[in-house]
């Protein structure tokens, strides 16, 4: 599968090491299929390599909530939010507007948020650690875009609990503020307090019990470091949530996205095919507790 050529329309600096690239297909007929919330693409920095990166926004997904000033750029455009941790992610983070990147995808199982009116069924709890907010942004936008009343307020309870190392590392601060303004219950917590920070300090897991989530009918979407997801899922389960309604986004080395390369195995799962998003509970609970070491 050759990558489709996409042009970088905008490169927006989110934090010192995170950038969001808005990409548009070089030719409309080249565009990859529209992603579902939580799916990922394999992005190529030509001459450097390829990396799995979640879709943090897409014109086709956010079409429903147009008018909210989203940073998309016309039909087929997608936004990827990337943390600079190595060769490929660095090259992507510094890609300037006008340059070309390769896109293959979309791959994997998403959150499934397109399929129902989640906010009408119960509380929706979004828990993210660091860059983990990226694959959750479009879900929140979608739910917010579809479930507002005449006065523009959310028709249901949407909790967004986001954690970061420190204030300067909080990504999507404007989105968080926008969701709060729509009536979402947003809480941001940092590991380390810096001058001027007035919010919570500590782990995201500590924000779960006091949030006032009604566990019956609730759904939770969790993305972050594996250990954070494990403790978060356990805390949600302790509240009385049905583990099969807690979704986590699992990460392993990925080199093809197509189920061919074998790198992304986690026990019975081929995560690029069966994940990255899986329901917690049963086998997955066991896999996340079992140490592969």
């Amino acid at each position, binding site marked *: *599968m*050759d990558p489709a*050529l996409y042009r970088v329309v905008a490169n927006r600096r989110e934090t010192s090491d995170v950038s969001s690239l808005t990409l548009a297909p070089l030719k409309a007929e080249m565009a990859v299929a529209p992603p579902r919330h939580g799916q990922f693409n394999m992005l*190529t920095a*030509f*001459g*450097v*390599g*390829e990396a799995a990166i979640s879709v943090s926004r897409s014109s086709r997904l956010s079409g429903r909530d147009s008018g909210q000033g989203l940073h998309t750029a016309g039909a087929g455009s997608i936004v990827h939010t990337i943390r600079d*941790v190595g060769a490929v992610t660095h090259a992507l983070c510094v890609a300037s507007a*006008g*340059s*070309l990147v*390769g896109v293959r995808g979309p791959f994997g199982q998403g959150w499934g948020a397109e399929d129902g009116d989640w906010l009408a069924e119960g509380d929706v709890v979004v828990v993210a650690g660091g860059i983990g907010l990226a694959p959750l942004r479009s879900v929140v936008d979608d739910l917010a875009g579809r479930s507002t009343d005449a006065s523009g307020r959310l028709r249901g309870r949407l909790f967004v609990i986001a954690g970061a190392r420190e204030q300067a590392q909080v990504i999507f601060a404007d989105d968080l503020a926008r969701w709060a303004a729509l009536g979402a219950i947003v809480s941001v917590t940092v590991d380390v307090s810096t001058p001027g920070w007035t919010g919570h300090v500590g782990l995201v897991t500590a924000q779960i019990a006091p949030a006032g989530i009604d566990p019956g009918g609730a759904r939770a979407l969790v993305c972050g470091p594996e250990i954070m997801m494990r403790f978060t899922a356990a805390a949600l389960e302790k509240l009385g949530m049905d583990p099969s309604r807690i979704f986590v986004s699992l*990460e*392993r*080395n990925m*080199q*093809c996205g*197509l*189920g*061919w*390369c*074998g*790198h992304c*195995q986690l*026990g*019975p*799962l*081929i995560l690029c*095919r069966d994940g990255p998003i899986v329901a917690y509970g049963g086998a997955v609970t066991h896999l996340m*507790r*079992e140490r*592969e*070491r």
Partner: protein
Amino acid sequence: MAWSPRAGDLAVVDVAGLDALIMALADASYDVRGPVVRSGAIEPGPLGGVVDLPRGMRDEQAPGRYDLSDTAGGAFFDWSSSARSWKAELFPPEEELWRARQEPGGNVTFLSTPKASRREPLPLAILGLRPCDFAALGVTDRVFAGAAVPDPRYRRRRDTAFMAVVECGSPGGTCFCSSMGTGPGCEGTDAAPDLVLTEIASGTVADHRFLVRVVSDRGAEVMAAVPTRKATEADRSEREAILSRAAARMGRRLVTEGLPELLLANLDHERWSEVARRCLACGNCTSACPTCFCADVRDTTELSGQVVRRRRWASCFDREHSYLHGGAVRASTSSRYRQWMTHKLATWWDQFGQSGCVGCGRCITWCPVGIDITEEAAALRGAALPAGGGAA
């Protein structure tokens, strides 16, 4: 006009007929490959006629050992499994995926690969792969051809390839295909071969013959150019005797009943660290294995400025295989051996609905320290903790 078999028929050819079959494949524009002797081992190689086959050769295989000797006998297939499998013919150890030119202005143009721009390679015909190896193709078929997006390179080679399986009359010391249900005969599998041959070499020289079961129409077309006769009841019963003798002479056995559950309930067993003390994590087992499909994908910029993406066989015994965030998920040898063995025998079922092991024995033969998958499984079974007490 002489009788010529159709799909479903059982025919008999003599040694000259086998030679004619190889010619007929070449005449039908196949690139014919088969087992040949190369640097002291039986390996896949080009086949021009029966002269190239390992006639009279017998292999001896044991954990960490492979010996080939010339018995001066007349049989062509008196050996067990080839040292190398046929995996590389369909899934090359290294392969270019694409090539592109990046211009100074940043424009990127994909180039057709030099290989693809040459004339189309001839379709492959493989004569002399064993039933276990044919079953292994059924396993890689599910991985590559059965994926939501099938691998076009594998698919093209596989779809056009002609397969003439030769059943096993002389299994080796590390074979356990009868435990895995993949041999020594070649009965029904997921995919059908074109021809299935059985060598009958026990009688006089004049009596040396091959039963040929014609499975596909393609097989029948090729057989039209080969002098044959119809098989008799005596031919059939001779084949059955050969296969049941072979099944009784398997060098190894693996009890598969409840095996996935057994392995997954014993992920914390101390046997994993015991085997890890011997395991060199060299990856010989994964490259010898006909079903291991893992590959690394790497991009490089060549001196010409062209960007090339290649994939290359990888092994879960490499530390980098599970690299994530500056470290390997499976950092210890025991975790990597456990990944390999549980993948083969347990989680492959979850992922692809079948076993990842076909019982060819190569991982045992080619392990420099002679680690034996059947022995490891038996140890876990024998020493398995009582039900309910095994899981972490």
